[in-house]
């Protein structure tokens, strides 16, 4: 698919917000899905070669948004797309978050894990849920879009490792204090955080959905480069993050097998 870049806005030294117009994409995308995006508009070079997997962060009318962090060659090139330019990407890929109505929901996001959580918060609010967002980062530069998030949640609790924004410390600390008050928890971020959040939820007997991120070549289930290990009864089985995920039951992920 192709779309038109509406804006590719620098949020801070690391983070960008990319809005793309594509009726075709918006028509079928579900909350929690991702896409593979071509990081360069140059058809005459094959470097970088692969598309980049990014979680869909929002949908508005015929437009969708991505939030990404510049970490390497691909995302650096992505940050250089100009307004009005044409950008290529895949169909919406992967499974989606389970939708709930009129529930008490906690969202726990770490760093760039905010991307799919942003759209999820809005969607759950629209469905009558009470939505609290626990959002952690290393520093003030790792927590973005705070104004927009405040508007779309009932409570926004921000933490940073160094205390440069919100509460100092890990996001799991305030979340753990309140976990009992929720019907369901959704989380996206670094694996260590996802494992901790899942552990807290399992102990409290509350369902938890985690959105996982792995290196991917195809995003279609063919390359087998993005394996996730999941418990099924007494067995641990392999799942493809791109097709059977990226959303998994946090209680069933075999965290000790994920690096």
């Amino acid at each position, binding site marked *: 698919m192709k779309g038109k870049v509406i804006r590719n806005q620098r949020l801070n030294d690391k983070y960008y917000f990319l809005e793309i117009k594509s009726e075709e994409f918006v028509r079928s995308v579900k909350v929690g899905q991702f896409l593979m995006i*071509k990081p360069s508009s140059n058809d005459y*070079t*094959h*470097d*970088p*070669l*692969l*598309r980049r997997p990014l979680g869909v962060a929002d949908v508005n009318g015929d437009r969708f948004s991505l939030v990404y962090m510049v970490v390497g060659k691909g995302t650096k090139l992505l940050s250089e797309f100009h307004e009005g330019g044409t950008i*290529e990407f*895949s*169909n919406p890929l992967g499974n989606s978050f389970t939708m709930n109505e009129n529930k008490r929901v906690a969202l726990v996001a770490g760093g760039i894990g905010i991307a799919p959580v942003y759209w999820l918060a809005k969607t759950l609010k629209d469905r009558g849920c009470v939505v609290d967002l626990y959002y952690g980062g290393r520093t003030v530069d790792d927590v973005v879009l705070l104004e927009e998030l405040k508007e779309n949640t009932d409570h926004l609790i921000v933490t940073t490792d160094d205390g440069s924004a919100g509460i100092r410390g890990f996001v799991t600390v305030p979340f753990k204090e309140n976990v009992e008050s929720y019907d369901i928890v959704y989380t996206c971020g670094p694996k260590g955080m996802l494992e901790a959040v899942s552990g807290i939820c399992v102990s409290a007997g509350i369902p938890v959905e985690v959105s996982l991120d*792995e*290196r*991917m*070549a*195809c995003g*279609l*289930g*063919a*390359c*087998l*480069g993005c*394996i996730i290990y999941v418990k099924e009864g007494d067995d641990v089985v*392999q799942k493809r993050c791109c*097709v059977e995920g990226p959303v998994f039951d946090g209680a069933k992920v075999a965290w000790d097998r*994920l*690096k």
Partner: protein
Amino acid sequence: MSDRLKTTFCGVEFKNPIITASGTFGYGLEYANHIDIGRLGGISVKGISLREVQGNPMPRIMETTSGMLNAIGLQNVGVVKFIKEKLPELRKYDTKVIVNFWGKTVDEYIEVAQILDDADVDMLEMNISCPNIKEGGIAFGTDPKMTYEVTSRVKKVVQNKPLMVKLSPNVTNIRVFAKACEDAGADAISAINTLLGMSVNIHTRKPNIFNVTGGLSGPAIKPVAIRMVHEVFRTVKIPVMGIGGIMDWRDVVEFSLVGAGAMQVGTANFVDPNIPLKIIDDLEKYLADNNIANLSELTGTVDLSR
């Protein structure tokens, strides 16, 4: 579509010479939701073994300059499940099915080949060149005597299907291996498999792939593949299927000029699943524009005069 792309390879009639390469296209079905796989000349499915294989621990892949490293470890569902669950679905599409297969021992190669010889498939591709697991055939693909032994013994039990052998580029002289295959009765050669590579994360100082080394693929390896197909074509009489870094129709023409009778598109399928179909359309246009009745007119016609 005209007949410009019709390709006969080892007696198998392909509607075009564009075949998706093993390990990059799953069992074909993974792509059926994204492209019309019935337009492909053929599909070479993920390497099949006697029993189901789980593959290597993660991380398994890493992008490199104009290429990627992988060490998946030949993960597959096993030959029985493949024939029962995957093949009937794949057969619903109008495309040729090539089954890539491998074993840990000569006896395993024979056993899988025997089963596949009686299955509803068009061609067998014997993998003696996966660099990612010790027993995954690389031992057979880097010693000409063993290449001859496994090929000749498998050929004895393959009665109904053409047998193509996929060669490793991780050898000093690929001609010796091509000759060993031909002498052992192989019907065709496919070349090349991935080049053994490695990359290290300078911050963690660890290899980027769990297996330490992986197979390099993508446009980065194309010149090596072109050279090797050229060498194989000029060494043996059996046909050669060219593989290695094909991204567009120009690459296909280049492989044709050095002798490839058909081509496999691999890593490009990861980059964009539409690439093989675009290649078919572009190739058709190129042949029409240049009044070439069939791509085979170009096979091996590289001009080496000085």
